[in-house]
Structures are given as structure tokens and as C-alpha cells.
């Protein structure tokens, strides 16, 4: 079947905190493929979805749901249950990748550097006493610290903690988004996102995108306010360091068993060492997102790339 006859269902929205981002990602990817003559529909994830998907089993599904259920493997389990072809990683890989502490463990085992960290549920703080535990965190990991929900994206609930006095508020903010917090040593350096696409026999890394937010922290506002962050694509890195970053992203992609596409977020320290922070199985596709910028920097067309991914998924089948 040629791309022009292909029917694609983009899944966007959902009930996660990143619903708005997902809707924008979905619209952009849908438009990029429609521009190539593909029949694309965009569906929210609600009670009518399964019947709609089952009614057209020949469609290829593009899950662009960010946050839980979209990225934690649950929805992809359902797609497999329904026997539908879809773009992206399988459920088992998603389950590990979406869980930042688990993904860090896999990345470290594959030889990547990742900042020292501790993942702690809220109950642990209550049982052991938050003050003592927070003091131990500061003593062990040092300051500054990065606090973020163990699961979730778009920096929601994330904060940089520069003094011990700011840690309680950061923990409270983090636990509002999830039950487990990842407290990580903050690595100063150049923030670089490396996207990986796999449309052939071998996955390849796209040029890294360097992120320089005006306020110093790439928070939600810096991510989604056009103009609030300066991006360099490709990143301003020594070629050898850029190559190391590319290899790190490919290593993470392979070690986590990811498929089709991913985006790995790295910090490159003063010595040129890339530190693995997290990987995204459904990277953002909005107008200010990093993956589409990497696609452009590589001289590729977003719609063409998505068509390739869709055709690959169709060939792969359910």
C-alpha cells in the first residue's frame, strides 16, 4: 500500500497532565502527514476509541500521548491486544523507559554516565522522617539537586534545589505530580537532546539540539513559550563530543529495547562527558519541541519521516 492510501490514526490528548502538549503534538504530526496526502485522523483516548480502532484494523496507529498510559506501555499493550500496527516502542520497553530510575539503571548498566540519584516514595519520607531523610540526601548527593517525579514529562513537578531550605517545597511540588520522587545530583553543563530514528536496518542519531532557556531552567514555560528558550541545532559541541552524545543516545535506545524513535536528554559537563538524564518514547512534536528541530537540522522533512515510520509499522504489522 502506498503512503497516499494509508490511513493513520494519531492518538493525542488523554487524561495525563501533559494532555495539552499531546494535543499539540498530535495536531502537528497529523498536519505533517496530511501534507503528504495521507488520510490522517486524530483521536482522543476515551470510551469511544476502542470501537473506532477495531472498526478499521488496517489503520496504523501513531500514539502521541505524553505522560502516563501513553508512555508507560499501558496503551501500547491495548494496541497489541487489538492486533493493531503502531509506531513506536513496545509496551515492555516503554514500561522501563518511562520509569526514570529504572531507565537510569539500564543506561548505567550499558556504560552511560548518569547522575547519582535516589528514588523515594512519599511514604518513605513519612515513615523515616522527612527532615532526617532530606538532610541525608543533601549530605550524600550534594547541592544543587534536581527533584522530579519518577514518572512524567514536560518538567511538570520538577525543580532545581540550590539550598537545603528549598528542598521541602520542591518535594511537595514533586509529590503533587506523582507518588515517587527522583532526587538527583544536579550536573551543570550543556543541555542536549539527541533524537534517534530507526527507519531502516540501523537506528541513527539525529543532530543533538542544545537547549539554552532564558531563565536557566528548562521548565514548562520555557518549553512551550515560543521565544523563551534559545535552541542550537546542531548543538555547539566539539565534533568528538557530539559524536559521544550521539553514541550515548543510540546506546540508551538499544539498551532499553526501544523502537522507531526516541529522544534522550543529556547534560554535557565541562569535561565533555554526556550524562544520561532520561529517555522519551513519545517525544514532544509541538512547534517548540526538540525532536522536530533535530529532524530539520538533519535536513529531513517531518512529514516524510513520519510516513517512513508509519510504513515501517505497517510492514511490521501488529
Amino acid at each position, binding site marked *: 500500500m502506498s503512503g497516499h492510501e494509508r490511513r493513520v490514526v494519531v492518538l493525542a490528548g488523554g*487524561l*495525563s*497532565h*501533559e*494532555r*495539552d*502538549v499531546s*494535543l499539540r503534538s498530535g495536531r502537528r504530526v497529523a498536519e505533517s502527514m496530511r501534507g503528504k496526502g495521507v488520510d490522517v485522523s486524530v483521536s482522543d483516548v*476515551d470510551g469511544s476509541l476502542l470501537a473506532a480502532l477495531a472498526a478499521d484494523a488496517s489503520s496504523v496507529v501513531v500514539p502521541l500521548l505524553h505522560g502516563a498510559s501513553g508512555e508507560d506501555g499501558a496503551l501500547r499493550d491495548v494496541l497489541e491486544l487489538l492486533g493493531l500496527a503502531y509506531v513506536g516502542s513496545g509496551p515492555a520497553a516503554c514500561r522501563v523507559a518511562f520509569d526514570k530510575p529504572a531507565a537510569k539503571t539500564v543506561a548505567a548498566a550499558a556504560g552511560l554516565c548518569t547522575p547519582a540519584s535516589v528514588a523515594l516514595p*512519599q511514604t518513605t*519520607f*513519612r515513615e523515616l522522617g*522527612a*527532615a532526617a531523610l*532530606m538532610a541525608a540526601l543533601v549530605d550524600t548527593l550534594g547541592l544543587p539537586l534536581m527533584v522530579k517525579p519518577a514518572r512524567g514529562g*514536560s518538567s*511538570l513537578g520538577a525543580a532545581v534545589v540550590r539550598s537545603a*531550605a*528549598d528542598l*521541602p*517545597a520542591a*518535594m*511537595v*511540588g514533586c*509529590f*503533587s*505530580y506523582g507518588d515517587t520522587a527522583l532526587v538527583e545530583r544536579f550536573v551543570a553543563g550543556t543541555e542536549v537532546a539527541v533524537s534517534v530514528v530507526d*527507519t*531502516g536496518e540501523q537506528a541513527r542519531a*539525529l*543532530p543533538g539540539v*542544545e537547549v*539554552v532557556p532564558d531563565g536557566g531552567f528548562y521548565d*514548562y*514555560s520555557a*518549553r*512551550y*513559550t*515560543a*521565544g*523563551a*528558550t*534559545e*535552541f*542550537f*541545532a*546542531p*548543538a*555547539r*559541541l566539539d565534533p568528538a563530543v557530539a559524536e559521544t552524545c550521539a553514541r550515548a543516545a543510540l546506546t540508551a535506545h538499544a539498551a532499553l529495547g526501544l523502537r522507531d524513535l526516541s529522544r534522550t536528554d543529556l547534560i554535557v559537563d565541562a569535561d565533555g562527558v554526556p550524562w544520561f538524564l532520561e529517555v522519551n518514547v513519545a517525544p514532544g512534536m509541538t*512547534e*517548540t519541541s526538540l525532536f522536530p*528541530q533535530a529532524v530539520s*537540522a*538533519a*535536513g*529531513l522533512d517531518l512529514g*516524510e*519521516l513520519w510516513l*517512513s515510520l508509519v510504513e515501517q509499522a505497517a510492514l511490521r504489522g501488529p
Partner: protein
Amino acid sequence: MGDPPTPTPPARGSRLDPFLDVYAQRARTMIASEIRALFSVASRPEVVSLAGGMPFVSALPLDAVAETFRRLIAERGAAALQYGSGQGAVALREQIAGLLMPMVGVSTHPDDVVVTVGSQQALDLVTRILCDPGDVVLAEAPSYVGALSVFAAYQTSVVHVAMDEQGLDPQALRETLTRLGQQGRKPKFLYTIPSFHNPAGVTQGPQRRRDVLAVCSSFGLPVLEDDPYALLGFDGVVPRALRADDADSVLYLGSFSKTFASGLRVGWVVAPHGVREKLVLAAEASVLCPSELSQLAVSAYLSEQPWWDQVKVFRELYRERRDALLDAMASYLPAGTTWTVPEGGFYSWVQLPPGLDATTMLARAVTARVAYVPGSAFYSGAAKELGAASLRLSYCYPDPDRIREGVRRLASVVTAEVDLLATFGPGPGPAVPGHGGSPSDVPGPATA
């Protein structure tokens, strides 16, 4: 796909917005926010939204409204679909002056009425003609978020004035004006919602209104009176407008959004001659004219339909929902949570147990499938901290069962946050004074 070319890093980064160097200074505050992102989830039916102040227009006799529209187009379509006057349709202005304004005790002439695209445009026009960047505007603490957005867009400096259980505190108003005067700052006007306040849910009594007007008069301070909920008092009594007792200094904003249909976007201003002339010119520059179709539809609805009976239906419906909210809050919300008891309108203002942050808590609430508006949204600039431990609940849209379910969910969220706070202790933010604070420090209306 072929192999990509080897790109070289650009000398300058991209900011993904070619207009970045073109934006006005006032656009710099227009940024993406986590709160707005979370409200995207609130639009899903799984979420009980106690956030938005959407009138329950489903209670309208939609068949009758449809017939009004049908006849309007069939009989006066050429006029209804044409441009109209910048000041608004004469027929509607006559009805506003002759029918609506007397209900709030105001005697006025149709010539003194300017019809606007909802009272939100009236807020915009008034601020446009009265305020230069840096001017001071006084507003209640807390105040309507849509008005604060307008004041921010015109780069004014909002100074909040404390409220109590009867709304704006005249003593705090006097102290604020005195303090500003000592600093050489003279506010352009006081923005107030005297009846069934949004978001505070409180109402200025007759004596309170006289006291507020007296303070304003003694300082020569104009008043912008925003009165969209006046007809929605649950006891059926329509509070007398501030303008009824000071037509020279009070600009009055009215709206059909809450008594008829918010989607038609029809509001109005009643203003003295000089102000009215400038408002018309500003309105013409802004939108040429309000929608003639909407205006004539409202006019036809007022003349052909039993609109006052419908207002009574709305009152009863909102009273029932208010009761459901109050009952549910009393049943479910944990100790230390207090709230105002609205006698009309759409909102109750909730004070969370000390130390909680309603903005931070919203993520947990959305996870629990309930939404509200954090209190900080109703304060401007640095004063936002004053609303940290507060939130606004709207009872106008969900039915009573949904309201009860929403409050039940909210209660579990508040309890979880109290638990979190007990674990980690209060954050480093400024302490929010309780009822014992001095009046000018009180962040919001007294709750019980």
C-alpha cells in the same frame, strides 16, 4: 531517506518565533503556564470541573430561543446581519436603560449606554481610555481574574484592597489610598464587584456600599462597578448598584452573560457623557460595532420571551447547586478548611488549612479528576502569594450530584496535601496571615 548532510552548529540559536523582536513590552507576560496546561485536562468529562464560571445555559428554553432567532433572521435578517452602530443597537440600549438599570436602582438614558462585546470588552475599553502604563488601579483582594488580565495588558500596577465578609473593607480602602497618597501615587479608579463577588462570593450590604462610596468620594476616586450577577441573588432581592448613589463617579458594567446567554457576548457600560463618547470611539477602533445579530437577539428575547421568569429559574437552579456545594464542603472537607457562603452568583472562596498551596495542589486534584481555580490567579503580580492557600469553587455548571462528587474528590486531595505538609513542613513561601492579621494584610474575604 538518504543520509543527512553533516550540519554545522549555527552561530545564533533559534527561538522559534520570528516575531520575538517585534512584540510589545506588554506581551512579555503572556507565557505558557502549567496551570493552563492542567485546565486542558479539566475539559474532559471524567473531571468534575468546579473551575470555570460557565453559566448553565442548558436551562434556557432552547426551542423558544431558536424561534426568536428564526423570526429575527426571517423578519429582520438584513439588519441583523449588517454592521451596526459603535454605541450599540438603539432598541437594546432602550431596554437596558428602561428595563435592566432600574432593577439596580439606576436611572439612566439610552444615550448613556454603550453596548459591548460582553462586559470583558467594557473592561478593556474603560482601561484603555483611562490608564497609561504604570498607572495604579485598585482592586479587591482577591479580584476577577479577567479584569486583572486586562489591567496587566495595559501595564497598570494593581494594588489590592482587603475584603471581609461584607466585601471591600472601607477602612482598608482609606488606608491604602492614604498610603498611596503619601507615595505620590493617585489611583485611576477602584475596580469592584459589589454583588455576589467573583471570586470571593460575598456581597456589600447597603451601609457598606455607602461607606465605600464615601471613601472614594473623599479621595476623588472614580469607581468601576462590575455587576454581572446582580439579578442572581438567591433571596430574590436585587442589590442597589453603587452607581444608583453616585452617577458622576461610578462607571457601571452590566452583562447578559449570566442572565441569558454568555455565548452571545453582549454586555454594556453606563457612563457619564464624556466617558461614553470616548468609549464609543474606542469601541469603534476595536471592533467597529458589537454583533448586531447578538444584540437584536437579546433585544427580541427580552421583548418576546418571559425572560424574568427565566432569571428566576436560574436563581433557583444556582441556589440548589450552592446548597449542594455548601453541604458537601461541610461533610467532606477536612478541619481547618473554611469558605464563604454566597447569597447569589456562582462562587465560593475556600481557605485551605495553613501552609497548603492551591497552585501546587492542582496537579494532584487533576489526577483525582477534580478541578478548581487556585487563589493566586485572583491576585496581581507579587500579591499572588496572598492567594496561595485559597481557591475558588464554581457551582454554576455541574449538577448537584457532580458537585458533591467533586467536593468529595477535592477533600481527598486536600487531606493528602495536609498529610504531605505534615511530612515536609510548610514551604519557604511567605506566611499567609490568618484572621488575626491587620486588615490591610488580610489576603482575602473572611471565611467561616
